[in-house]
């Protein structure tokens, strides 16, 4: 369960990104966060894995208060959260296989099990057979799928995707939405920040709408 309780985030330059935002996401929910550019969607998502810390208020995930979490505990929190950021953050000098393997190495998985998991993640996102390729050799849609595979290979309980369909053709965007939906069906809590609500609309997800940092609809 994810809880935002009167969360405010003001950046050092004075920009108010979130203003007294409160909501609750139940386990297994698929939540779409929408709003205009600069509404605070990305900031909201970054607060969950403690990439950013709130100025005031409380962010809680699986009964852990992230707002007050000590720095040394943050890595362990992140291992249970799948992150698909706007920039894919793929490592260009590592193969597709090694990119997906990285979270498993960090988590200390035995080699055999890690290999199985990487194989399963590749199957899930439709990149089987591309293990030895490098990210630069993949299309935009494939790179995004690779980022999703890496985010999910640790079997996180929460998956966060920040504008995962940006700059993708409708066909690729639809594929990505389908993959995220399948994760949700498997019991993963999914939060997606997007401009393209219609893509997820036919699954009737819960929608949180932000406007200039304020929550205007949920």
């Amino acid at each position: 369960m994810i809880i935002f309780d009167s969360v405010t985030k003001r950046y050092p330059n004075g920009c108010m990104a979130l203003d007294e935002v409160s909501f609750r996401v139940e386990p297994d929910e698929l939540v779409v966060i929408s709003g205009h550019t600069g509404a605070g969607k990305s900031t909201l998502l970054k607060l969950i894995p403690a990439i950013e810390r709130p100025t005031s208020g409380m962010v809680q995930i699986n009964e852990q208060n992230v707002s007050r979490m000590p720095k040394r505990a943050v890595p362990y929190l992140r291992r249970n959260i799948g992150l698909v950021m706007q920039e894919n953050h793929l490592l260009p000098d590592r193969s597709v296989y090694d990119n997906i393997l990285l979270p498993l190495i960090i988590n200390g998985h035995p080699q055999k099990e890690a290999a199985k998991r990487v194989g399963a993640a590749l199957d899930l996102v439709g990149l089987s057979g591309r293990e030895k390729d490098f990210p630069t050799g993949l299309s935009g849609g494939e790179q995004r799928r690779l980022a999703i595979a890496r985010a999910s290979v640790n079997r996180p309980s929460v998956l966060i995707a920040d504008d995962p369909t940006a700059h993708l053709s409708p066909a690729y965007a639809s594929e990505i939405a389908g993959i995220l939906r399948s994760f949700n069906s498997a019991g993963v809590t999914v939060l997606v920040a997007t401009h393209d609500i219609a893509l997820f609309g036919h699954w009737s997800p819960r929608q949180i709408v932000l406007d200039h940092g304020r929550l205007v609809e949920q």
Partner: protein
Amino acid sequence: MRNWLTLHLRAFAYALRRLFGQPFGTLLSVLVMGAALTLPAGGYILRNDIATLMHGMSSKPEISLFLDNEADSAQADAIRRGLQDEPQLASFRFVSRDEALKQLKGSGLGDVLGGIDTNPLPDTFIVTLRGNDPKRFEALLAKMQSWPGVVHVKYDSAWVKRLAALFELARVTALGLSVLLGLPLLAVTLNTAVRLQILAQKDEIEVSRLLGATNRFIRRPFYWFGVLQGTLSGLVALAAVWAGTHALAIPVVKVGETYGIKIALSSPNWKESLAIVAIAAALGWLGTAVSVRRHLGWF
């Protein structure tokens, strides 16, 4: 435990890849660090040679115990026993007054005694000392002076003191210069190498942090990188010291011969070689640890 080992093996393999992935850069860094380490390593080896030389030279000074002309054979025997019981002596020999006179005449100085009917020379014990501590020698001298039958003890303590001070100065200067010049150069080179590595892996560090990597996980390959660079630099330094001692061995012996001193430059033995490489590896680790802590704060 197995997981810990696996993580270290991965980090080690990764560090190896990074090290040999840029062979030219690695070669330059290792050569500079090796040169920096050569100074203290060479200084250490030289320090050992100087200590050996000091020991060898200070054993040469002799003490002459001149006996009273009235001293009887019982007193001479008592002095002999006293010398035999003295652990600080390497050896001693007795020169009788007749023998001394014979030697004097044999040396061509017999005319000095012209007109003197009796033999004015005393019985003498010539004593060779063990060790190289002038302070202890002085205590020994005072003790010998008090023995019955001994009228005079002759010992050139100032010469030994001067020599010991000279060698001590050389030893400290060699070591101090090595440390002052070598270690900062090593620290600067290592810091630069690690900083460049961190900058080159900036994206990877950021991604790893997003994926839940701890600081320890991120630092581990850098530590191994430092240890490997240190080890290679240690080997370069060792090779340089070996080459240096071999190249200088004959000229140093020749210089020593002109002063009547036996000097030999020794190459590092296997224990010293191992110590040089191990210390270099430890310095590599230490330098990297400091550098990584400082620079990883950027991300």
